[in-house]
Structures are given as C-alpha cells and as structure tokens.
C-alpha cells in the first residue's frame, strides 16, 4: 500500500515550513535587533556629546570639568556599567577610564562617530567614540557600556520572533493533519458503508453525499457494481436455462429406467437397471442442489428480490408431496404450523425444506417420526425440521454444514450438499442455523431462526 495521504502531505510540507521558519526567524531577528542596537548606540553618542561639551581650554591646557554629581549620573544605568574616557588629539588621556580601548584603526568615522565592540576588564563592551573639536585639535570622547541590556534585548527579540513562528509552524502542520483527516472523513464513512454492505447488495452507492474528489472513484465503483450485477443476472439466466435443459432429459431417463424395471428382465440386468435408476435420481437431485447453491450464493439473489414469505403456507404447499414420500419410507411425517412470515426468496426457502425433510426421511428408520414446525420464537420467526432418527453428534454439527462433508459411516445416497445449501440459504436470509437433538432427547433438529433485525430488510434506502 502507498503511504497515507496524511504522511505524504506532511512530508511535502515539513521542509518548506521549516525553511520559512528559519528564514523568517533570522530575518525578524536582524530586522528588529539593528534598530534597537542603533538606539542604544545613539544613547551612548548623546552621552558622548554631553561629555564633549565639558572639555574646556583653560590657559592653553585642555581641561575636562565634570562635577562628580554629573559623573554619577553619566555612569548610572539600570543594567549596564558605563565607562568613558576623554583623549586629546595625541591620544593622551585627559579624563575617565584609561583602560577603555581606542577604536580599532581602520574604522571610519560616520558623522564624527565611530561605534565599535571592545573588550576591557574581561567584559565585552560596546563603545562609541565621538570626535570633538577641542582647541586646535580633535579630542576623542569614548563612552562604553557593558552589553547586558543588548544581550537581553537580543534574547527577547529571538524569543519574540522565533517562538510565535515556531508555534505557527506546529499549528500549520497540526491543521494539515486534522484537515486531511476531516477532508477524508466522507471517504472513511463511505468505506465503512461499503464494508457493512451485504455481499449480495449490488445497488449503486449514493454519490450525492460524497466529496467531489471521490466522485470518479464512486462512479467507477458503481459501474463495477452494475457490471457484476449484470453478470450475476446472466449467470442466473444461464442456470435457469441449464436446469430446464437438464431436467427434461433426466425425467425421460428416469421414466425409461422405471419402465425397463417394470419388465421381466434377467436378474443380472435388473441390478444394473436399479443402479442406473438410482444414479438418475441422484443426478437430478444434485442438479437441483447445485442450482439452489448457486442461487443462494452472494450475488445470486438480491435483497430487492425478497418478498414476504408465509412460511406456514410454504410448508402447506409442499406438504402433500413430502407426505407421499414419507409414506413410501413408512415414516410418520407430521406438522406443527403456527403463523410465521419472513422476507425472503420462496424458491430458496422451499429448497431448505426439501433438504431438511429429505435428510430426515433419509436417515430416520421406518416407523420413525419427522415433524416440520413453523412459528415465532422470542428471537424471530423460525422454521424447523425435527426427527427421532440417529441424530448428529454435537461434535459433528458444525462440520455437517460444510459442502460435501458426510459424517463418517453415513449410508444413504446424500451428496453432502444438503446442509451446506441450508446454511447458504440461511445466510442469504440473515437467518441463524441451530442444530440440536429432537425434543425427546434423541434424533436431530435443525432450526432456522430469522432474526427480526436481519440486515436484509435494508430496502428503505
């Protein structure tokens, strides 16, 4: 499977977002730190200008006259230590802190001011040197201060610009994540809907609620559904045809073998005839069963084809035929019919009855009893066939529902398909198959319970 949309989108988004974050932070840092640093420098320049005015020429000597109260004001700052030094044109210190270094050579004065970074007394300093005319020469008034304020400013700017940007980036990625989830929600809903669908349900999916991006996918799906549905219908037509084509010659074969057996034929010949006859009957039965199995399988029948079937009436319709068969086997076939109606396919439900009653008649010895029941249980309508024959051991009950499985030591002419068909048809009707013993504690009972909450009634859409 390809990487999820979410991961792909994030993979695409993270590098540019990180780049924007970096460039933005750096840009914002420098954009805001320069004017701030300039302002601090300017305040040093102002101090230097103020100091430069205190240089006086007295009797040919340069004098720096600063009252100590004024010096205290100059040196006072909330965060930093402030230093100053006044030098004459030859570099001789006239006043102030002599260890404040001169501007590095090569720096050009801008408007008579040189701003520079310096190092003194083991501290980083920011200094401005003001070139001020004094007497015949030019004095240098240097004002320097430690960088606590500036460092703090830099840190504040950094936090102030990078933090919001970083948060913005994280928020963007989170929004993408949730946006994709939200944007894909209709798809998730759609896939949930498709997952919950009965495999028999080939109706087109409603495209109206789906996002525009999913429409092509839906249209393709619906087209596929349509094609599968059509091919199912073709298969149905083929099966109906095949059954028709097969049954008539089988009926002829059966007629002629029965005719032949009614003739005076040699004993050796009779055994062969009986074999042909029983094979014919088995083949006919098998053809019916395969047809039923194919029809009961997903796609063989659609919920829309289901109509309300009166189970009691269904049993009454087939009762006559089965009573005659039970008479041939000398088994007492009885009924216990209470009203029960289910949405379903009458043909398939009749096939269930044929298989269950057929099985019971097959395995119940003569003078035994078989009872067909319909009615309402607390869980829903039910259809049951019960006998007092040999029964099915509890351990075998699941396996006998499998195709072509026959219990060890089973005699009779069964194909092993009967109960598998019952299970398929029950499945198609959302019914549960319950196997147990007969009411007297022996024999076998098979009950189909049609849950009233069966998904097949989902034709409201």
């Amino acid at each position, binding site marked *: 499977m390809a990487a999820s949309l979410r991961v792909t989108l994030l993979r695409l988004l993270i590098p540019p977002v990180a780049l924007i974050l970096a460039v933005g932070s750096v840009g914002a840092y420098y954009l805001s730190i320069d004017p701030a640093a300039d302002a601090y420098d300017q305040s040093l320049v102002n101090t230097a200008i103020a100091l430069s005015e205190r240089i006086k020429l007295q009797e040919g000597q340069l004098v720096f006259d600063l009252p100590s109260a004024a010096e205290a004001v100059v040196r006072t700052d909330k965060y930093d230590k402030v230093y100053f030094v006044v030098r004459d044109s030859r570099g001789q210190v006239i006043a102030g802190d002599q260890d404040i270094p001169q501007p590095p050579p090569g720096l050009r004065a801008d408007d008579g001011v040189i701003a520079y970074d310096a190092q003194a007394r083991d501290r980083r300093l920011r200094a401005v040197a003001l070139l001020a005319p004094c007497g015949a020469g030019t004095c240098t008034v240097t004002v320097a201060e430690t960088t606590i304020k500036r460092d703090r400013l830099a840190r504040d700017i950094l936090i102030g610009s990078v933090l919001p940007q970083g948060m913005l980036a994280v928020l963007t990625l989170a929004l993408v994540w949730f946006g994709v989830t939200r944007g894909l929600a209709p798809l998730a809903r759609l896939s949930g809907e498709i997952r919950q669908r009965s495999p028999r349900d080939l109706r087109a999916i409603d495209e109206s609620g789906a996002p525009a991006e999913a429409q092509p996918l839906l249209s393709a799906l619906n087209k596929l559904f349509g094609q599968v549905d059509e091919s199912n219908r073709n298969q149905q037509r083929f099966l109906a045809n095949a059954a*028709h084509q097969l049954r*008539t*010659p089988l009926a002829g074969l059966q*007629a002629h073998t029965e*005719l032949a057996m*009614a003739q005076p034929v040699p004993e050796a010949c009779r055994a062969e005839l009986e074999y042909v006859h029983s094979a014919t009957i088995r083949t006919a039965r098998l053809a019916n069963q395969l047809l039923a199995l194919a029809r009961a399988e997903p796609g063989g029948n659609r919920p829309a084809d289901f109509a309300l079937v009166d189970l009691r009436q269904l049993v009454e319709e087939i009762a006559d035929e089965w009573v005659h068969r039970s008479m041939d086997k000398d088994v007492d076939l*009885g009924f216990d*019919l209470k009203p029960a109606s289910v949405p379903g396919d009458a*043909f398939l439900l009749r096939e269930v009855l044929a298989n269950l009653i057929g099985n019971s008649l097959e395995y119940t010895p003569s003078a035994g009893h078989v009872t067909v029941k319909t009615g309402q249980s607390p869980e829903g309508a039910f259809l049951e066939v019960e006998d007092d024959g040999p029964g099915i051991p509890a351990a075998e009950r699941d396996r006998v529902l499998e195709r072509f499985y026959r219990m060890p030591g089973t005699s009779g002419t069964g194909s092993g398909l009967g109960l598998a068909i019952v299970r398929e048809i029950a499945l198609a009707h959302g019914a549960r198959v319950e196997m147990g013993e007969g009411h007297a504690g022996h024999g076998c009972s098979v009950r189909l319970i049609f849950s009233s909450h069966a998904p097949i009634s989902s034709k409201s859409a």
Partner: protein
Amino acid sequence: MRILIVEDDISLASGISRILEAEGYAVDLMKTGEHAAMAARQESFDLVILDIGLPGIDGFEVLRRLRSEGRGMPVLLLTARDGVDDRVRGLDMGADDYMAKPFAMPELAARVRALIRRGQAQSGPRIVHGPLVLDTSARRATLKGEPLELAAREWAVLEVLLARVEKIVSKEAIIQAMSNWGEELSLNAIEVYVSRLRGKLEPAGVRIRTVRGFGYMLEEFKEG
C-alpha cells in the same frame, strides 16, 4: 379413458405414454402447443398432461385456450422450471395439478388416476371409490352394495375427502368447505366426524390417513 400428452421431449413423452398405456389408458402424443390446442378442440380427452416449456405457444397459452373454449377436462402441468410463479400461475389459470421434472413414474400414475377419477366425479352424480359409492343427487351412499348411513356432516366431510383422493386435506380446508353449509365447526368436531367415518369405512378397506398436525388423506383404494 383417453389421455393427451403434450411434451416436446421425445424420450420423456414416450416414457410417459408407455407407462400410461401399461395402465390401460389410450394415449395421444403432441409435440407442439398449436397441435395440442387443435386436437383438444376436435377430440375429447379425459385428461391432458401439458408441458409448460413448449416450442411455439407454451403450455400456459394452451391451457388458456382450452379453458376459454369451455373445455373442463383435468389438466396436469409439467414443468422443468423451479419458480413458484409457474405453479401458482398454472393453478390460477385452471390447471388441476402440477409436477416438477423429473418425477417418479408411480407418482405420475397415481396423480393421473386421481385426476381422472375427479374428472368423472365432477361429471356425474355418482362418486365411486372402491367399494364406496356416493350418489350425490339422491344423497344415498352404499358400501359393498349395502346401504351406508351417513349423518349430514359426515357426508360433507367424506365428500371433501373424496374430491381429493390421495391428496392431503387440511382440517382448515375441511372447515372451509363445510362453512358453505352455513355452519362454523371446530377442529375437534372434524376429528369426531373423521373418527366416525373411519368406524364405518375401514372394515371395507377404505382408509383415511391422519397427517399429524395437518389434516387427513383419503388413501387410494387397494384391493385386499
């Protein structure tokens, strides 16, 4: 007794006709619906065995033509299809019985006997079932030639069963049939009348079988 078989499959048609001939019926074979409809118009048959899936006009159409021309002979439909619709449609259109292919020949023969008997019962006032004879116009019954006393309700129940020999009849159907008499009977009452009928008929070999939880069936009469 003359039977018309309408079936396009030669093997099956010949099988059926030989079995019915062996039972002593005169049999005519037709392969198409057109021929069958024409033959039924010109000749008189006691029973028509009619395949639904015929080339040309199908069995339903033949049946429709027969009934629209007022032909009331019993019709037994044969079909290779499995749809319940065929069965319901056929019976609605006036068919008397219905068999799905393939079927066992003894069953076909039994149904043919029952249908012919019913056809005769409807055509005349006398209903004959082995040693039992009901003269419906005179309301007199005899068993082995001896007069048989039947109460009015016993007669009614017996008539319902006789109309459907070898077919199971639900108690509800019997009650329904008797409600024409303007009486509402309980299920228990039906059991009482059947029990009395058994007492009168069984010594002569006329048997009414109980179908547990369903109803009854008047068995075909067999000698001995």
